[in-house]
C-alpha cells in the first residue's frame, strides 16, 4: 500500500531572487508539514532536475540543505514526466519494503533565473542534436508539427484547440496561486501572438518559477487516505521526427497498464489531472487515453464536460496552461490538486465528493508517458 500522505504546491509565477534549491526546500518543508512528518522519518528522497541549476547530485544537495539523511536518494530526468515517474518509483520503494516515507521534490526559478531566450534554447534541446536542432526548432514548434497533423487528420480547427486554453483559464481564476488568472475567450486565444502555426501564445503554457513536493508513505494520515492503485509507463520515441503514429504515442499504453493494475475501468474515473504543456497536448492525451472519442474532446468541453460541475472535472488548478509551468514541479501540480480534491481539501475550488482519479504526464514530445490511478479510501 502506498498513500499520498503529504502535498505542497507553491504559487507559480514570478519569484524574484529565488533559487532552485530554496524553492525546493520550501516545498519539501510544506509537504512534510502537511504529512505531519519530521525530517528523520523521511527515509527516501527523489528530486527532479532544474534547468537553472544543472548539478550532478541535486538530490544530495537538497537533502543536506534540508537536514535530511535518507537511506535512498537520487535525482531523475524524464522531462515533464519526471514528477509522476518519481511518485511511481516512490510507490515501488514503499511496496518493496525499502522505504516507509519517500519525499518527492521539484522546483526551479525557470522564469527569473535565466533570460527567456536561455529557457527556450535549453528546452529546444529535447530535439535531436544532429537532425532536428540544426533547423532552428523550439518546443512549441515540435508540438506545432503534431498539432498541424492532428487537426488535419481529424478535421479539427484552431478554435477547437482554443477551448482547452479557455477552460484552463476558467479553472485558474479560482486558484490564488495560479500564474495567469485573467479571463480569456476563444477570440483572445485565436488573436494571440503567433508562435508556431497553428499554436499561438495562449495555446502555450507560460514559463514560471515554482515548486511542488509530495510524500508517499506506507501509512495514511488522519487527514488524507488517497492511495495509488495503479501505475504505468510507455516510451515509444524521443524525437518528434521519429513518431511512427501520432494517434499511438504511448499515452494509451501507459494508461492501460495503470488501469489494469488498479482493476478499474476508465468510466469509474471522477477526476482528471492531465498534462497540458500546450492545448494540443491536452487534446491528444484525452483522446488517445480514451476520455474522449477521437476528435471529440473540444466538443466535450463545449458541452460542459471536464468543468468543475461535470462527472470528470479536469485540472481544476488551471493546469500548465494557466497555473503555470516551472518544469518538473509543473507536472506535479496536477497530482497535488487531484489529492486535494479527493481528500476534500481543495478549499473554494472543492468539487463534490469523488473516489477515483487518473493523473497523466508526458515528457519530451509525447515521448515519456506516466499514468497513475488514485483512490480515496472510505
Amino acid at each position, binding site marked *: 500500500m502506498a498513500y499520498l500522505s503529504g502535498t505542497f504546491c507553491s504559487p507559480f509565477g514570478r519569484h524574484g531572487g529565488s533559487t532552485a534549491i530554496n524553492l525546493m526546500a520550501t516545498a519539501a518543508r510544506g509537504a512534510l508539514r502537511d504529512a505531519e512528518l519530521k525530517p528523520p522519518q523521511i527515509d527516501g528522497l527523489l528530486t527532479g532536475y532544474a534547468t537553472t541549476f544543472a548539478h550532478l547530485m541535486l538530490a544530495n544537495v537538497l537533502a543536506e540543505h534540508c537536514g535530511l539523511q535518507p537511506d535512498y536518494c537520487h535525482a531523475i530526468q524524464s522531462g515533464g514526466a519526471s514528477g509522476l515517474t518519481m511518485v511511481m518509483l516512490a510507490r515501488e520503494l514503499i511496496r518493496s519494503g525499502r522505504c516507509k516515507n519517500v519525499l518527492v521534490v521539484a522546483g526551479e526559478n525557470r522564469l527569473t533565473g535565466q533570460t527567456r531566450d536561455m529557457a527556450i534554447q535549453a528546452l529546444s534541446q529535447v530535439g535531436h542534436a*544532429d*537532425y532536428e536542432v540544426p533547423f532552428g*526548432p523550439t518546443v512549441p*514548434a515540435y508540438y*506545432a508539427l503534431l498539432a498541424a*497533423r492532428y487537426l488535419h487528420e481529424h478535421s479539427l480547427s484552431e478554435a477547437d484547440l482554443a477551448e482547452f486554453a479557455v477552460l484552463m483559464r476558467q479553472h485558474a481564476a479560482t486558484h490564488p496561486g495560479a500564474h495567469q488568472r485573467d479571463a480569456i475567450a476563444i477570440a483572445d486565444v485565436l488573436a494571440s501572438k503567433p508562435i*508556431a502555426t497553428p499554436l499561438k501564445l495562449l495555446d502555450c503554457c507560460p514559463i514560471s518559477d515554482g515548486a511542488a513536493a509530495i510524500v508517499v508513505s506506507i501509512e495514511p494520515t488522519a487527514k488524507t487516505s488517497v492511495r495509488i492503485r495503479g501505475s504505468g509507463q510507455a516510451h515509444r520515441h524521443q524525437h518528434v521526427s521519429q513518431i511512427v503514429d501520432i494517434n499511438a504515442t504511448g499515452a494509451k499504453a501507459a494508461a492501460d497498464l495503470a488501469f489494469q493494475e488498479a482493476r478499474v475501468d476508465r468510466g469509474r474515473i471522477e477526476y482528471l489531472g492531465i498534462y497540458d504543456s500546450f492545448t494540443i497536448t491536452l487534446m491528444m492525451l484525452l483522446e488517445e487515453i480514451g476520455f474522449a472519442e477521437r476528435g471529440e474532446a473540444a466538443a466535450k468541453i463545449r458541452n460542459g464536460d471536464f468543468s468543475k460541475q461535470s462527472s470528470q472535472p479536469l485540472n481544476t488548478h488551471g493546469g500548465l496552461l494557466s497555473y503555470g509551468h516551472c518544469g518538473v514541479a509543473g507536472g506535479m501540480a496536477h497530482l497535488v490538486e487531484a489529492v486535494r480534491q479527493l481528500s476534500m481539501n481543495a478549499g473554494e475550488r472543492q468539487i463534490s465528493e469523488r473516489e477515483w482519479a487518473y493523473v497523466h504526464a508526458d515528457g519530451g514530445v509525447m515521448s515519456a508517458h506516466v499514468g497513475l490511478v488514485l483512490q480515496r479510501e472510505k
Partner: protein
Amino acid sequence: MDQLAEHFWAGCAAGELLFQRCVDCNQVQFYPRGVCLHCGSEHVEWKVSRGVGTIFSLTRVERAPNDSFRALVPYSLALIDLDEGFRIMAHANPQLKIGDRVRATFFNHDNLALPRFEPT
C-alpha cells in the same frame, strides 16, 4: 556531432540527401546508426535519396530560439516522408500544405547546408 552525422551533413553540402539501408534485410532507416534497427546487422550502407517525398506536417515558426534563426523568421519547418521510406525534419517553402509532393533543395545557414523542400 558523431561521424555518421558528419557524413550526413557532408552529403547535404554536396547536394545529396543521404539515408541508410541494411544490406542484409533491406530495411531503410533514418537517422543513421551503426547497426540496422530492424535486424541488428552491422552491414548498413549509405544511399542517396531522390529527394522526393510528401509533406507529413508543417509549421511556420514566428518565435525563433536564437539570433541566428531570428534572422530567418518566419520560416517553415516540416516533417517530410521521403519516397524511399524514411521521414526527416527540414525547412520547407511556406506555401506548402500537408500532403503536397515536394523535392529537396539546400541552403547554407550556420555552416551547414540545410535541406529545404520545394513543390515538385
